[in-house]
Structures are given as structure tokens and as C-alpha cells.
């Protein structure tokens, strides 16, 4: 579904990604784990075309994204829930969700999707009139995911969705990611919570200083010595 080949990227002179190859098939949960600054968010920003690759190619459903603008990518069904949530602070919860379904394709399913995200996150329903900027960190994270789902994603890019959530809710969020996947949404997940994300992932990649150093099934990587030492503190 998504195929990244030899992706390289630099912020000015600072090279961040080196020949990254990565693939996501329809229906999968694929996770990318790596230390701070490894380049995970940068990779997602390349996929969403917020930044343009220095070299290499990204294609989605067989079509090259080379000439796509960020808003075209969303129209094709690649939707990113960015790191740091990026909620619209002065829009209400409802308005934030409406913006998620801004494009015509998603707009026609607005009511249906709104019901769906309110069942996933009942808290949002209680706070529908509240301004995004006044929500708590965890609530904002729920809103960010819900807003992404409003766009009818085929492929959902999640950048550290568990960041800043209470331990209890972290478990919850991984279950919700599984549920979303079960509804037919393919997922590319970037996480610091390596244990949880490897547990729910079908396949996983380990990114170190901008290079893919390991890949395999989530199960196998959980048993991998290097992964255990570097990320799981074992």
C-alpha cells in the first residue's frame, strides 16, 4: 500500500534520513521505533509531504507522491496525527473534528464518523463545546486521533499517540489502535513505548540515526537481544 524506497532527507546541511526502505501493506499495523532524534517524525513529515525528500521515492497504492501537495496526500487517504497533537487551540472540539472531515470525500461521512469517534472517546462528547486549547494533554491526544479518523483514512500515521497519557490510558490507547485497525484502517505507528507498540504490531522497523537497522515481526523484535537492551531495559 505504502512503499518507501531509498528515502533520504536533510534539514539544510543536517542529514536526518539515510536510504530508508519501508513498506506497509493493506490491513497491517506497522510500527517504527527508535531513540529520540532518530528521524521518525521526519519520516512521517516526508510521507505527508510537509517536507520534500532530498532523494528516494514514496508511493501510495502504486502512485508516486512526488508531485503531491500535503492536502492532496490527505485526499488520497493518508492521514497523519502529528507529534504534539497540534489541536487548533481556538476551535471547539466539534470544530476541530469538523476540520478533520474538511475534504469533500470525508464531509459526506461526517455524521457517521462523528458518532464513531464519540463512541471511541466518550470524553470528547462531554466536552464538545470546549476550546481545543483548554483541554488537558490527554484529552487533546484523544481529540487529535479522533480528528484524524474524521478524515476517512486508509492509512493512519500516528506519531507518538501515547505521549503524555496516564499509564491506565496508555493501555487503552493501544487497544483503541487495534480497534481502529480492525475497522479496516491500516496503521503506521511511531512510538516511544516500544513494548506496547511491538505487541500490537504485525511488523516493525528499528530506526537508528536515520537508518533502518532492524526489521521483522513485532513478536520477533520483542525477543531480539539488541531491542531488549536498547529499548526495553532488559
Amino acid at each position, binding site marked *: 500500500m505504502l512503499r518507501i524506497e531509498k528515502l533520504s532527507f536533510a534539514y539544510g546541511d543536517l542529514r536526518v534520513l539515510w536510504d530508508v526502505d519501508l513498506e506497509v501493506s493493506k490491513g497491517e499495523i506497522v510500527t517504527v521505533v527508535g531513540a529520540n532524534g532518530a528521524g521518525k517524525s521526519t519520516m512521517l513529515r516526508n510521507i*505527508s509531504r*510537509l517536507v520534500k525528500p532530498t532523494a528516494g521515492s514514496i508511493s501510495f497504492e502504486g502512485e508516486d507522491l512526488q508531485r503531491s*501537495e*500535503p*492536502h492532496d496526500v*490527505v*485526499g488520497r487517504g493518508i*492521514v*497523519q496525527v*502529528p507529534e504534539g497533537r*497540534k*489541536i*487548533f*487551540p*481556538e*476551535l471547539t472540539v466539534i*470544530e476541530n473534528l*469538523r*476540520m*478533520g472531515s*474538511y*475534504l469533500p470525500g*470525508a*464531509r459526506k461521512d461526517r455524521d457517521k464518523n462523528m458518532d464513531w469517534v464519540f463512541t471511541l472517546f466518550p470524553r470528547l462528547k462531554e466536552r464538545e463545546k470546549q476550546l481545543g486549547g483548554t483541554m488537558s494533554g490527554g484529552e487533546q491526544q484523544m481529540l487529535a486521533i479522533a*480528528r484524524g479518523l474524521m*478524515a476517512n483514512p486508509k492509512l493512519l500515521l500516528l506519531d507518538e499517540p501515547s505521549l503524555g497519557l496516564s499509564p491506565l490510558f496508555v493501555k487503552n490507547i493501544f487497544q483503541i489502535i487495534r480497534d481502529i485497525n480492525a475497522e479496516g484502517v491500516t496503521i503506521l505507528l511511531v512510538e516511544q513505548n516500544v513494548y506496547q507498540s511491538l505487541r500490537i504490531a504485525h511488523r516493525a522497523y528499528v530506526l537508528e540515526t536515520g537508518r533502518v537497522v532492524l526489521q521483522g515481526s513485532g513478536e520477533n523484535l520483542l525477543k531480539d537481544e539488541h531491542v531488549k537492551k536498547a529499548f526495553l531495559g532488559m
Partner: protein
Amino acid sequence: MDVFLQSLISGILLGGVYALIGTGLTLIFGVMRVINFAHGDIQMVGMYLTYLLFVHAGIDPFVSVLITFPLMFLFGGLIQKVFINRVLDALPQNQILLTIGLGLIMSNTAMLIFTSDYKILTTSYSSGSVKLGGISISQPMTISFLITVAVTAALWWFLKKTDTGQAIRATAQDRDAAQLMGINVKRMSIIAFGLGSSLVATAGALIAPTYYIYPQVGAAFTLKAFVITVLGGMGSIVGAALGGIIIGISESMGAAYIGAGWKDVVVFALFLLVLLLKPSGLMGKSNA
């Protein structure tokens, strides 16, 4: 007491026009983070357009607003598409130079076409007024105020209730996140600059029956637009509307109680005072 009421009312009526000017500037700034130094010149274009429609087609200024508003939307949108969209990532000083340059081109073009003569647009009601007790209320200013209220209400509805309006606000609040929602931010910028131009040109059209029209008339209004928006808080629409009314009132109070030559002094003194107390403006988000 009559003097007070009189200048309060005239101030509010004038403030409505100022509110439109400020709203236009703040809308553009909010979405693009670009300060439009051609703002007053766009207003000047609106004034001449109104003048032409009146002199050659006999259309009343308050009616021709219906033509001026959409035409200036296209004019502003084109400026955004052709020029400003290219410098959105450029250094602020380059953006400033670009808008100053565009303003100069507009005022010089006006000079070529119309010479620097002062034009006066005299309608049957230009100096008409209604007496209420001891107070006289200018007829054209009253009509213009009603139009500003209608335009502001329509703008508010558009920004609050429509998908496009919400997308404009979303773009102003977080450009990256807006793109991740599938919002075409370049298009939102075109709409915002078009609307900003329509608003300030409408202000120009509304004051055309009571002001002199000449090519350099914009400069003073650009300055005024800044004072209004900075006073209200850059990027805040409510702030700009409030700032406009406050500036209108303080101008007319200053003129009534101190002297016509002093009204700008009063405005700037008030402006400095507000910024001393609240540096981010009345409706601005303070960083403190």
C-alpha cells in the same frame, strides 16, 4: 452633555469604518503572518472605484459596494496568488518590501490615471444630517455604519459557521496542522487576502461620500490600520473591531474637547497607554 453625546455618536459611526479597515488587516495577518503595507492603498483603489461607478454609471456609493466588494475580492486574491504566496516563507523584511512596493505601484498608477487632483464625490445626502434633540447625526455616516455592522455580522457568520471559514481560522491557528487536515493553505491565503481587500475597500467606498479622494490617501489609512489592529491585538478579529470603535471615539472626542488638530495626538497617546498596560493589545494573547 450634548457635546459629549454628539462626539460619542460620531465617534462610534466613524469607528465602524475603522473596524472594517482593521478587520481586513488582522485577517490577512492572522492567516499569513504578513503585514500588508499596501492596505491603505487597496482602500484608495476602492475609493476610486466607487468614484468611477458614481460619476460614470451614476451608481450610489452605498449601492456600488455590492460591486466593489466582489471586484476587490478578485483584486486582492490575484495579488495574493501572483505575489504574496511566493514570499510566505521569505524573511519578514522581504515581505514588507513587497507589500510596500505593491502599494506604491497602486498609488502611482492612480496618479497616472487620475492625476493628483482631489476628487469629491458629492451625493444628495453628503452633508445631510438628522437632528435628535441637540445632537445632529450625519446621514451618510449612519448609513455607512449600518453597512459596516451588516458586513461584520456576515463575516462573523462566514468565519464561524462555514467549512471554508473554519478552515481559514484553522490555517491561522496552525498552518501545518491545517495541511494535515487536507486544507489547501495557499487557497485559504488567497481567500483571506481577497476578503481583507474587500473589507478595506468597502471602508473606502463608505467614506467616499465624505472624504477627499486622491492617490496618496492610502498612506494615512495604512498607519491607522496598524494602530487599530495592534491596539486590538494582532490577528484578533474582535480586537480589530473593538480597536476601530475605540479609535473612532477617541478621535472625535479629541477633536471636540481639545481641538481638531489634536485628535491624532489623543489617538496615539491612548495607543501607547494601552500598549504599556497590555503589550499584546486588548484581545491579544499575552505571553506573560
